[in-house]
């Protein structure tokens, strides 16, 4: 039995090597499919994380009109404090705000900052406020908007709605793209294996003539598909991590975005990719050999 399995496994590996161009094409498409799936899932997880962060904070920023004297801004602040749902109200001077932004952008020696202070500062004065009761969030925001001198409020409920919309869009688009790519992957894998099968027609006919069962004929082709799938899964997992870390590294350096750390998720991603790859490969193999045995005739000896 062990000899038998070893023989079938060796045949599967030999099939991949003897048909390496098509095998590489299958790996390429399957890796693309898994990468897109992984990217969509990571994007969705990041959006969920961002939404939780937004929903979890009960503070908003109230921006004052441009050019409004600091005294008037402070008066507006007093009016905000008078509202009964306000827990805290902290004034942020626009010069402090620009310093903070420049610091986040990595302007450590303050060369950029020099040209952005005083009148050249593009940022307005603002208040960082928090609410006592979040259920009255919308009413309180509406009351703040009415206060003289208030220009805008970064209303996180809008951000959350936008994030939800974006998440839905990515999920929907991702679903269709992944579905399409899955079908393409299956098609390419099954055709790769079919090409191998046609190049092994003689062997199959000899196998049939000496009494091979359908499963004996099938197994090397399923092994071929599973190996292609496993290899693609491992490769896609590595590439996904590399790309994710590069992209999030770049994003965090230019935005305030705090992405999820991929490292703790990596074993689970790899496992899923390996399982998905192996399943795709096995199904691709089964489809092609099933079609072959049905069309060409499972009992063909070809006298």
């Amino acid at each position: 039995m062990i000899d038998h399995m070893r023989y079938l496994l060796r045949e599967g590996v030999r099939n991949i090597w003897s048909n390496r161009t098509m095998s590489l094409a299958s790996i390429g498409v399957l890796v693309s499919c898994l990468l897109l799936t992984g990217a969509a899932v990571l994007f969705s997880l990041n959006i969920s994380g961002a939404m939780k962060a937004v929903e979890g904070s009960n503070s908003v920023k109230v921006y004052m009109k441009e050019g409004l004297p600091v005294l008037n801004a402070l008066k507006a602040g007093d009016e905000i404090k008078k509202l009964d749902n306000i827990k805290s109200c902290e004034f942020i001077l626009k010069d402090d705000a620009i310093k903070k932004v420049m610091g986040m952008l990595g302007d450590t020696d303050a060369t950029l900052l020099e040209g952005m202070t005083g009148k050249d500062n593009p940022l307005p004065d603002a208040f960082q406020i928090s609410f006592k009761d979040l259920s009255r969030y919308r009413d309180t925001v509406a009351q703040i908007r009415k206060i003289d001198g208030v220009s805008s409020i970064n209303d996180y409920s809008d951000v959350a709605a936008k994030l939800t919309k974006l998440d839905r869009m990515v999920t929907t688009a991702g679903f269709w793209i992944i579905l399409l790519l899955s079908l393409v992957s299956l098609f390419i894998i099954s055709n790769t294996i079919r090409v191998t099968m046609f190049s092994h027609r003689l062997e199959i006919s000899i196998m049939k003539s000496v009494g091979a069962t359908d499963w004996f004929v099938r197994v090397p082709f399923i092994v071929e598909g599973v190996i292609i799938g496993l290899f693609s899964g491992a490769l896609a997992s590595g590439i996904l991590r590399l790309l994710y870390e590069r992209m999030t590294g770049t994003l965090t350096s230019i935005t305030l975005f705090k992405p999820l750390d991929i490292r703790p998720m990596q074993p689970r991603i790899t496992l899923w990719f390996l399982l998905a790859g192996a399943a795709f490969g096995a199904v691709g193999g089964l489809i092609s050999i099933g079609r072959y045995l049905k069309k060409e005739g499972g009992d063909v000896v070809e006298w």
Partner: protein
Amino acid sequence: MPMGFAARGPIGAETGRTWEFLGYGAIALIEFQNVSKIYSNGTMALRNVNLHVDSGEFVFIVGSSGAGKSTFLKLITCEERPSEGEIVVGDQKLSGLRRGDVPYLRRTMGMVFQDFRLIQKMTVYDNVAFAMHVVGASSREIRRKVPYILGLVNLQDKADCHPCELSGGEQQRVGLARALINSPRLLIADEPTGNIDPALSFEVVDLFSEINKRGTTILMVTHEHSLVKRFGRRVVEIHDGSVVADSCNWEARHD
């Protein structure tokens, strides 16, 4: 595994290079009862064939191209099913044979082809061992049995050669070794001398005769009248789908 097709045990009886392990008693092995075959395109390949082949017989099947010889072989190996009638191989009625049981029926047969059907990238040894892998033989059994069979067909020195390095006669002997490796009770040969030098044809058929002497039933399709005449065996002539002659003195009638 269906009754009647029980795989034979490993060769344990062979002592030296003998053919004893292939021996069987003389019982009916193949029986065609009113068999007709009509293909889906309407071609009537065989019509009302009645034939009986005993275990241990050597039968030449002759006939012109398109006479129905290939269909006859396909029906025995279950590549095709009869449209009418019944075929019995061993004690198994083929009409009742499920598709999943066909491989086990074939394990009781050896097949030799006109074009040898050898895998070019494999050595002689691997070509023969391949047939044992297919039936799930262990490596130990393969290592023991393949050199023995190669010795029987006088190819022990060519085990590491590839088919392209062999003559036509030698390639056919590899095909024969592969057909014999799983100890079949029936050997079916389709024009085994068709692709080899006529001078070597007799040598190949001599080898078949030697196998037959040890009890293996042989069905050999051939176009070569010289072979049929020389070996003087039973001859079944198929013409236009019907058995038109079945005798042991066929050559006399055709002279």
